[in-house]
C-alpha cells in the first residue's frame, strides 16, 4: 500500500512535468504552412489518371498526331526511338499494342507514382537503370503523344 501511495505521488509529479512540457510545445500560431506554399504551385504533374479520363477514337485525329510528334521530338526523342530498338528507354514500336493507353499516359504524367507502385514500370527501370524523367507534359499533350504512338504503330 505504501508503494501505491508513492506511485500516486509520482503520478502527480509526472503530470506536473507533463503539463510544463506541454507548454513548451504550444501550437505555432502561424496559420500559413510555408512548405505547402512551395508544393501548391501549378505544375502539370502528379494527378493520377483514371480509365474514364481517356477516350480513343478511330480514325486517328491527324492534328493530335502532329502535336504528339512535336512533343516527342522536344521531350521524348532523346531516350526513345520509334523502332523496337532500346536507347535509354525502350523503343516505341508496338507500345500501343502491349500497353494500355492509361498505363502509357500515367507513365508520362505520373512517372514517380508509377515507379513506386506499378510492377511493369519497375521492371523497365531494372532493365534501363535510368528513372524516366518527369518532363512536365500535360494530360492533353500526353493524349496527343498516345495518338502519335498509335500512328507509329500503323493505326489509321
Amino acid at each position, binding site marked *: 500500500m505504501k508503494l501505491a501511495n508513492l506511485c500516486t505521488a509520482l503520478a502527480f509529479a509526472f503530470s506536473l512535468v507533463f503539463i510544463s*512540457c506541454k507548454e513548451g510545445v504550444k501550437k505555432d500560431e502561424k496559420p500559413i504552412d510555408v*512548405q505547402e506554399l*512551395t508544393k501548391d504551385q501549378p505544375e502539370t504533374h502528379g494527378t493520377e489518371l483514371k480509365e474514364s479520363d481517356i477516350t480513343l477514337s478511330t480514325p486517328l485525329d491527324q492534328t493530335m498526331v502532329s502535336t504528339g510528334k512535336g512533343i516527342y521530338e*522536344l521531350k521524348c526523342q532523346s531516350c526513345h526511338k520509334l523502332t523496337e530498338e532500346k536507347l535509354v528507354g525502350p523503343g516505341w514500336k508496338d507500345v500501343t499494342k502491349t500497353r494500355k493507353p492509361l498505363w502509357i499516359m500515367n507513365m508520362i504524367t505520373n512517372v514517380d507514382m508509377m515507379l513506386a507502385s506499378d510492377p511493369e514500370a519497375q521492371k523497365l527501370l531494372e532493365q534501363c537503370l535510368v528513372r524516366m524523367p518527369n518532363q512536365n507534359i500535360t494530360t492533353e499533350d500526353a493524349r496527343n503523344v498516345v495518338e502519335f504512338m498509335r500512328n507509329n504503330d500503323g493505326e489509321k
Partner: protein
Amino acid sequence: MKIFQPKNLQYLLIAVFAFFFLESCKPKGAQSAAGGDASKAYVAPGKYDEFYNFVSGGFSGQMSVYGLPSGRLLRVIPVFSTDPEKGWGFSEETKPMLNTSHGFVPWDDAHHPEMSQTNGEVDGRWVFINGNNTPRIARIDLKTFRTAEILEIPNSAGNHSSAFVTQNTEYVVAGTRFSIPLDNMNGDVPIDSYKQNFKGTVSFIKVDSTDGNMKIAFQIRTPGVNFDLSHAGKGNSHGWFFFSCYNSEQANTLLEVNASQRDKDFIMAVNWKKAEEYLKAGKGTKQSVRYAHNKYSDINHSATSTIETEVTVLDAKELAEMVYLIPCPKSPHGCDVDPTGEYIVGSGKLAALMPVYSFTKLQKAIADKAFDGDYEGIPVIKYEAALHGEVQKPGLGPLHTEFDGNGNAYTSMFVSSEIVKWNVKSLQVLDRVPTYYSIGHLCVPGGDSRKPFGKYVIAYNKITKDRYLPTGPELTQSAQLYDISGDKMKLILDFPTIGEPHYAQAAPAELINKNSVKFFKIEESQHPYVAKGEGQANIIREGNKVHIKMTSIRSHFNPDNIEGIKVGDEVYFHVTNLEQDWDVPHGFSIKGANNAELLIMPGETQTLKWLPEKAGMFPFYCTDFCSALHQEMQGYIRVSPSGSSVPLSFGTGRKPTPSAAKEP
C-alpha cells in the same frame, strides 16, 4: 486475473502518464536538446525556415541567401562578381551582365540589399543591391533568385548610399561616395582643386512597376561631399529622401583626420516630388555621359548590354525648395527612417549622441525659413528646429538603426560592440546586448519598412577572432541572431557568412517561396541556339566559327562524339538542358577550357566558348550529378591541325564507321 483492482490501475495510470510525458517531451526533445534560447534557432531537418535573409556579400560582390532562424546558407547569388561555379560571367549569355562603360568588370563590392516595397511593405518581388566600386545597381528577381538587371551609374564614384527604395518602389536611389569632376568635365585637374572642381550627385532611378526595369529618371547635382547612406521617407514623409553626408570639410587627403574637423556634417533631405515637378517643367540639363544598362531575359536565356549616352541633371543650388541640409553631429553614417515616417535617425560614427529628427518639425522649419545660412547655396536648417531629440550616451560608434514596429529602435554600436535598443519617442535606452565582435550593420525582418515583422535582430559583425575554429589569418565573417520578442534581447545563434556582410534584409518565406520558379519551360525558350529536342542537335560551321547545338538529358549529351574541329576554330557549345523537372541541372565542362563550367537549369540553354589550341582528343562531361548513370554522361571532341581534311561529323550512339576502323 485481478489486474483491474483500483490499486493496480494506479500503476497503469502512472505508466500511461509516463508515456505521455515522454511523448510530450519527444517532439520538443529535439528542439530542447539545443537548449533554452538556442532552441529558438532550431529548425528540424526537412522543415523550412520562417524567413529568408538576403545578406550582402561585401567584397565578394555577391548576395547570399540564408534561412532564419536556422542560419542555414541556401544560395549565393552571383551579382557583380564572376562565379565559375555557375558560369556567371563566363558563359556567353551572362558576360554582358558584367559589361560597363569601362568594359568587362569581373568584380565589385556589394553593400546594401533592399527589397522592393508596395505601400511601404516588403512585397517579395525583387532585391536591389549596390555595386560600390564601379557604381552600379543590380536587381535580383526573386522568382529565379538570379540577377536580372544591372544599371551603371554615371557621374558617380563609390555608389555607397544605395540601393534604397521609395515606399512603392517608384525609385531606387544611388549617391556618390566620392565627389569627383563630373563625367562631362575635365577630370585631369589637380587633386587639391577639390573645392572648385569636385561635385556630388544623387540619382533617382525609376523602377517599372510591372517588370522592374530600371531607368535613370534624373540626377541631382550637389556640392562636393561624401554621401554615405540613405533611406526614403514613408507615410507622412513619402516624397522625401534622406542621405547622410560627411566630409563637408571637402578634404581630399587623410580624411581620417581632415574630414572630422567640423562639429557637424549633414543629413541631406531631398524633396523628390519637387524634383519631379522641375523635371517635368524642363528644368533639367541633358548631360552627355556613358553608362551600361544590362538586362537578362528568361525567355532568350541571354543578357544584352546597351550603352546609354544621356542623363538629365537637376542642380540643387539653382532649383529652390528641392534640397535642404540638416546638421548632424560628426560624420553621420546610418540614416534611418522609422516605420511611421515621422522620425529620422542620424548616426554620427564619432558622436557621443544620436540625433532624432522630426519630419513635422522639418516641414515647419522649412515653412518658417528657420535656416542657419547655407552650404554652397543649399539652405541649412537650424539643428534644433528639426530635432525631435537626442539619444544621450547610446554607446560608442553608432552606425545603423532598424525598427521593430512596436516603437523601438535597434542601433548597432561598432566601437562598443553592442546592439542598443531604445524607444523612438521617449529616446530612452531600454536594453543593450554585446555582439562578438564589432558589429557593422544590423537587420530586423522588414526593419526599414512601414511594417516590420520583428521577432529577430541580426547583427553582422566585422570581426570574429576566437568565435570559430581558426582558419589561418583569414577568418570567417559572421552574423548573430538575437530574439527580440521579449523585453530583453537574447543571443540565440552565431552563423558564418560569405564575403563581408554589410546590410541585409529579411522577409517571411511565404512572401517569396510560392513564386519560386522550378524550371524554365522549354517550349517558351527563344534562345537563338536552343535545341528543342535531340532532333535539333546540330553543328553549324561559319568560317572558323563552329556552333554546336547540344542537348543534355539524363544521362547523355547529343552529340557526344564530335570530329572535324580544327586548331584555330572558335567553338561555341550551346548546351540545352532538355529536362523539365525540378532540381535537375546538368553541367558541362571540357578539358583545358580557359573559362569555367556551364551549369544549365532545366529548359535553359547556355554557351561556353572554347578555343582549341592544339590537335588532340578533348573529353567533356556533365559536372552535376544527375542520375545513377551520371558518370556515363560524357563525350569526346577530336581536334585536328588547321587545314586538316577530317570532315565535320557528330552524333550520339552511332555505330563505328568502316572508315574509322581503317584509321591508324
